[in-house]
């Protein structure tokens, strides 16, 4: 494993001094097995203390370091330099979010949306600790498990054309999270979540481009979650016409 130098082109924006964002290029000596985050850390420690970005775990689980890398939303800790053979890499903050500074984006909108879908168990039956656990078979677990794997890195929002056009859209990660609880055998909160999930800005806003699922670094399928939710609401609507329906 040898060393090579890459050109890291980083979008800079410091609101106190920069009129508008600009690119700054750093020539970074890198180890062959590094990820983009290692190169950023090298810049921060050895070249430029003024560069700001978020990171922590360096193992694709904390979700801090989502950013655009050569135009695609990725985790910087999962973007291996060996996959960029030209040696020139462009790094920008996540698309579709306001820039707070450099590679740091403003997350308020997403956090509000996550909170709005009531992402917690609204129980079928209250249970005391003395009554022990809810039984949940591996098959019941599997029905929602993959939607629990979202790390809130927001790569899906950065690539979602609907969110790009209209930020009132609740968006992939928050809708997938609502679906995660709706599909949990311990939960009976779907109606309570529908205020947000089934509203115009909810699932019906998704045009099923599916880009969210393609870029997800954890292989979550938010597009699939939204389609399943639409289907469930379609069935509800149709059954409402049956005798005894809720219509």
């Amino acid at each position, binding site marked *: 494993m040898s060393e090579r130098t890459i050109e890291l082109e980083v979008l800079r924006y410091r609101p106190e001094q920069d009129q508008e964002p600009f690119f700054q290029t750093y020539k970074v000596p890198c180890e062959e097995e590094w990820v983009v985050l290692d190169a950023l850390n090298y810049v921060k420690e050895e070249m430029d*203390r003024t560069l*700001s970005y978020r990171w*922590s775990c360096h193992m694709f689980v*904390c979700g801090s370091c989502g950013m655009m890398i050569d135009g695609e939303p990725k985790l910087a800790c999962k973007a291996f330099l060996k996959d960029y053979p030209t040696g020139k890499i462009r790094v920008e903050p996540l698309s579709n979010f306001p820039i*707070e500074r450099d590679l740091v984006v403003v997350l308020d909108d997403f956090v509000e949306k996550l909170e709005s879908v009531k992402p917690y168990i609204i129980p079928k039956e209250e249970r005391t600790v003395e009554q022990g656990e809810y039984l949940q078979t591996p098959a019941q677990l599997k029905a929602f498990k993959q939607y629990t794997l979202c790390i809130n890195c927001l790569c899906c929002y950065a690539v979602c054309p609907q969110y790009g056009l209209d930020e009132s859209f609740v968006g992939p990660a928050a809708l997938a999270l609502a679906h995660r609880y709706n599909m949990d055998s311990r939960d009976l909160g779907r109606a309570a979540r529908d205020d947000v999930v089934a509203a115009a800005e909810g699932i019906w806003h998704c045009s099923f481009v599916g880009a969210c699922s393609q870029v997800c670094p954890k292989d979550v399928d938010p597009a699939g979650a939204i389609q399943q939710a639409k289907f469930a609401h379609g069935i509800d609507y149709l059954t409402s016409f049956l005798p005894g329906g809720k219509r």
Partner: protein
Amino acid sequence: MQVIEADVIIVGAGGAGLRTAIAVAEADPKLSIALLSKVYPMRSHTCAAEGGAAGVIKSNDNLEYHFHDTVSGGDWLTDQDAVDLFVNEIPKELLRMEHWGCPWSRETSGNVAVRPFGGMKIMRTWFAADKTGFHMLHTLFQTSIKYPSVKRFDEYYTVDLLTDDGACYGCTAIEMRTGQMRQFRGKAIVICSGGAGKIFPFTTNGAVKTGDGMAMAYRAGVPLKDMEFVQYHPTGLPGSGILLTEACRGEGGYLVNKDGYRYLQDYGLGPETPTPVLKAMELGPRDQLSQAFWHEQKKGRTIPTKWGDVVHLDLRHLGEKKIDERLPLIRELSAKYVDSDPVTTLVPVRPVVHYMMGGIHTDIHAATPLKGLYAAGECACVSINGANRLGSNSLGELLVFGARAGRGAAEYVKKGVRAPGERLDALAADSEARVKAWFQRTQASDRVPALKKRLTTAMEDGCGIYRDEATIKAACDIIVDVRERFKNVALEDKSSVYNTDLYQTLEMDAMIEVAQAVAVSALQRRESRGAHQRLDHVKRDDEAFLKHSMAHYNPNGEPRIDYLDVVITKSKPAERVYGARAGGQSAA
């Protein structure tokens, strides 16, 4: 300076901080809660915990077993009253997590499943595949949203505690997006800021784990307890230090040296068996496994790599199905980071700094000696881990003692707390001046990254798996020098918005305090116990050192160390027994 008031202020929004917040909200929904963190809750390092959380739930298990595993695992430096209530309360806490939606892995019956872990006599580790901490953190975060009294202050960097007349009344914190300092004023403060693995160069810990809360409490006069006990996890990926969970071995993985030999049988952990046996071989305790690596290295039986010597973790015999079901993250991390798919290939591993057994001194109610100040989670030392924590006890600890801290703080507030004096404003102003001074200094001769490298290298060289007087003293001297040089560093970034140069400098300030407490405590403990192994004092010495080290902050030099008796109720100190003599059952 803007003043923000709350009844209970919580510093840190990882597993312990979120559990504390929920406990306060449930104890009394009328109490206002300010939950501060330098990162969004889901970024906290709880997310990186993999293997699971131990709690007695199955009919073949009982609380006494968990108690004895934990006490002997900690080489009798555990406080037995704390362990007793811990093992008693953790099953209920894990059930609460289940009720809150944690996606625990299940048996076909629908009951929660358990897996074997190191140093445990019975399988009792609840797990959610190999992402248990991640799922617990997200479950707690999402559940916390249910409670309107929990007001989060995400990306607020806490700088100093504010104390008056022997009690703690709040803290100063910087809103990171503006750079503005705020004064948080409360009646009870709970520190849940995590560990300090970043004082070492090679660690599983994320960037955030710089010991900020430990340093804050320490500077406010609360002793740091048993800081010399630093856990090396036996299986980290070389280079990155990424953790490969103990569950790899719980599920049946082998550790082999350069000859393909399962070397642990040479260190009192044998005999080797094809399928795992509890408390033997690869299911021995972490301290002993990391020490065995050190000896293999001395014997020339490890494998040299660019990133230092390694041994191999062999999971191939588990098969693809089991690996994908039980260890999917491990497969992904190994394949991506060291190009080794565990289904077909040996994975290189080496011991890596993982966890601080020591921390802010608390009693069993998570209360510190400073009135109104509580601490829970890795930043605290209530002494359930003693000289060596057993794997899967830390996720339980943050629940049990997070909940206790929350209930304790709520009760303390409800009893009525005297209002602080005017001194608080002056202290807040001092705190702001301390931060402003970083901005005002002009370029100095030393830079923070270089000093950090010096400090962390000194810790590895002086306070590693094996230590002696000379190596620790060398580390102590370097720390003194780094501390002196650090006084003159200047910020290179003078801006206000999300200034990570500032936060890394404040983190370095904390790291120096914590590193010094570790090194000086290690120097003065002239015995070998658990994770503290002295080449010049190779025996455990109960006569002199069956005691907790208490490091007291000294603004003018190295900390003063005194000692506190260990609480022993029913388990008299004895020899730790693993391998054949432990009589563990098969865990296959």
